[in-house]
């Protein structure tokens, strides 16, 4: 596969350039805001002398290009610097919180994909019927929903009123020990350790925030699937397939869906952005200690390194996912040349 390899290298090269751009951009953004982290670190009870001492310690007294050079050097060696607020390495802090975010986002994404594609296909197959109307209503509601409000409402209904969901306090019930660390995903780690009750507890905490997030994220997937599916179902080759007597189920699921998948796949990359933005909100409401909450706090106090670290991690994931999607095109549709 020399062609695939060269494509891969080219894409990776492009990804590196993109990430470098992200680093420069976020660095400039945080450093040009009218805010002095040294002053914030010194607290309200400060004087110019103490603030200056911290500026020197944090390297903020240096020209911005020197600061950038230092930061770039850190990044190149895989460090993200220290949070000035906690004094801990940002890489460690993000590392501790990333699994919580991934577990929530991945679960929400899977749910959204199943719901989104399922409803989208249904709506397309029964286009114009009441099913179609219902699905379109769902998609409109999902797209129009203020996630913050929805999350609060769901907590009120499922936790406070119905008592079906556990207290919205992070990932496990108070007092339940975390499973031995392997992946950091509690559902996975608890199963690996054979702790079935911990697994159930983790799942119990996961379903409601994941559903809330999935509802909003599934809306664009529904719309895209429906539209794409309709196009395909109305195309010549489907008509031909129907005409020669291929069973309807086979036409829809094999020929139709496979061909409709390309725009859906494109959508998936975009949906990832929704997921991360939505995560910040859902994590806040459910006291979910993921990187979204971490970034939010860091942003309000201008903890430069923490904010930069978060953006870089997200950028990595974004670039990685889009790279994977591009590669996936080739497998779904051989017509797309990797060149």
């Amino acid at each position, binding site marked *: 596969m020399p062609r695939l390899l060269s494509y891969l290298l080219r894409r990776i090269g492009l990804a590196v350039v993109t990430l470098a751009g992200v680093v420069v951009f976020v660095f400039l953004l945080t450093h040009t*805001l*009218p*805010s*002095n982290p040294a*002053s*914030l*670190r*010194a*607290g*309200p*009870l*400060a*004087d*110019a002398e*103490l*603030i200056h001492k911290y500026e020197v310690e944090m390297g903020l007294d240096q020209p911005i290009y020197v600061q950038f050079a230092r930061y770039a050097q850190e990044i190149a060696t895989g460090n993200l610097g220290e949070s000035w*607020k*906690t*004094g*801990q390495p940002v890489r460690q*802090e993000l590392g*501790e*919180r990333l699994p919580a975010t991934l577990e929530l986002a991945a679960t929400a994404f899977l749910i959204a994909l199943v719901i989104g594609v399922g409803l989208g296909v249904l709506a397309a197959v029964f286009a114009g019927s009441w099913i179609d109307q219902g699905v379109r209503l769902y998609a409109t509601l999902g797209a129009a929903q203020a996630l913050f409000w929805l999350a*609060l409402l769901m*907590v*009120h209904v499922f*936790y*406070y009123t119905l*008592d079906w969901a556990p*207290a*919205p*306090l*992070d990932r496990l019930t*108070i007092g339940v020990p975390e499973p031995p660390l392997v992946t950091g995903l509690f559902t996975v780690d608890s199963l690996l350790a054979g702790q079935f009750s911990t697994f159930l507890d983790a799942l119990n905490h996961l379903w409601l925030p994941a559903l809330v997030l999935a509802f909003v994220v599934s809306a664009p997937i529904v719309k895209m699937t429906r539209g794409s599916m309709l196009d395909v179902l109305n195309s010549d080759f489907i008509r031909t397939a129907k005409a020669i007597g291929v069973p309807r189920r086979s036409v829809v699921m094999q020929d139709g869906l496979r061909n409709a998948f390309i725009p859906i796949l494109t959508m998936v990359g975009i949906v990832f952005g929704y997921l991360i933005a939505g995560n910040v909100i859902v994590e*806040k*409401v*459910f*006291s979910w*200690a993921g990187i979204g*909450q*971490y970034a*939010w*706090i860091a*942003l*309000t*106090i*201008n903890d430069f390194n923490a904010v930069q670290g978060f953006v870089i991690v997200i950028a990595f994931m974004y670039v990685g996912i889009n790279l994977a999607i591009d590669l996936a095109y080739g497998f779904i549709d051989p017509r797309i040349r990797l060149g």
Partner: protein
Amino acid sequence: MKSRSALFVSVSLMALVAMILGACGTAPTPTEAPAPVVTEAPPAEPVGCGAEGTIIIAYDGDIDHVEPMEFRSIAGYDATANLYEPLIQQELVDQGDGVFIGSEKFIGAGAESYEVSADGTVYTFHLRKDAKFADGTPITANDYYYTLKRALEGPGYITLLTGFMAVSSMDQVEVVDDYTLKITASQPAALAEIILSFQVLGAVSEATATAHATADDPWAETFFRTNSNSSGPYIITSWNAGVEYVFEPNPNYWRGSEYFHNCKVIFRVVPDATTREQLLRAGDVDVALGVPYGDLKELEANPDIKIYHVPTTRVYHAGMNQLQKPFDDVRVRKAMSMVVPYQAIIDNVIYGYGANPGSPIAAGMVTHTDEFFTYDQGTVDEAKALLAEAGYPNGFTVDLVVPQEDQARVDSATWIQSGAATIGVTVNVNALPIAQFNGLLDGMDENSKHNLPFYIFEWYSWGNDPAFQFTWNFKCGQWTNYSNVCNEELEQIITDLTLSRDPAEREELSKRGQEIVVQEEVPWIYLYAPEWVIATRSNVSGIALFNDLTLRYAFLGKK
């Protein structure tokens, strides 16, 4: 100084009796010796360690670190208040209904007793021989010496506090023997007890610090950010950053087990206010902090919930920068003060959970008076006339900067806007993220003067004393004097207030100081002094308010 100080009180009756006897035996001092304690928290019944002995608190913030000498989050100060034992502390007075409030009297904490020389310069502390760190090593005068050294020469901001007790060098601190420490102030220091009672001067173990110090980190800050060798009532037994911290009684704490009304405090980070309320309503947490004012009335009506609210001297104000147009004319500052709808702000912004302080020295701080505050009687015509005299007959336009995270401040800005409109002044409310807000507030012009014209800020002096309040906010050239007040007479008053130990003289000085600030300089529009609010389940009691407004966990218990 912003924020809390530390004084803990306490206690088991036995320890108390011992303390009073000790004080009487060793304090032949003409000045104030620790007064006998009249009221105290009752000793706790033995608590079981199941749910009945566990207090779960939903916090509105996270502990960033627990290094006692560096500035930290409010939650961080709550944590350290329970980890570090200062030499002395405020005496607590039982208010009934499970509420205890610190008074202006000081009693021994890490020190069994102390004496002050007649001229108010020499402080001699007799340490407890039974006090130990969490690791079992005794707390000696050397440890308090090291703690002061760390404060004076170490990493953080504490030198800004020690200045108030006229101590700037370790030459002024002497270890007389293992259990006697002598501090000699360079001049009489009215505020020495207040400063020494602060949690930030709670004992740090020298041996522990030395064991974790490195060449790059001589004060072992890295270690103390996430660890402690507690000299105070609690130890942290579980640290899960961003999620949960578990506090359990320090088995070596000198006050013994009767001091504790719980056997475990679980600190949970719950960033969303609505979620905290839901958790409290459902009974999944016992205490919720940071409940929005607007929701309190409804919660108070809930029989399962109790709202504790106690007045504080935290002063929210709109600052007007005296060196920036148009506020460089005092008539403009007065006119603006006359048109703010003060009562509407109390009613609609903090929903009655607080009052207008009418002075930078709010009710609850010694020497408070609001007799100089007459702006609420001002009329639109008077204000217009003042503006015309100042050369603004048609008003002006100005930006009012507030931090967007604080809804009460954003709301207050809107009320100021509506009041200003009545005299033709257009106020543009500029709500910014707190980091940017602070950046603007710290901003300086070419003469090293703060240059933000109009902003809403708040100030709380940990020591709860007018000397602090005047110094931080109105002393010439002080970093935190954001409105650039600089008044010769006030300078002298501030100096005298800091030195004088005579209550009558201080009263007089502070009164004149308040007159200057409220009537003559007019740097602030007084908005509100909010109450300290804690929402709990109705079976929870034991709320202790020291003048640093941090939660002392030992008092919290379930009926």
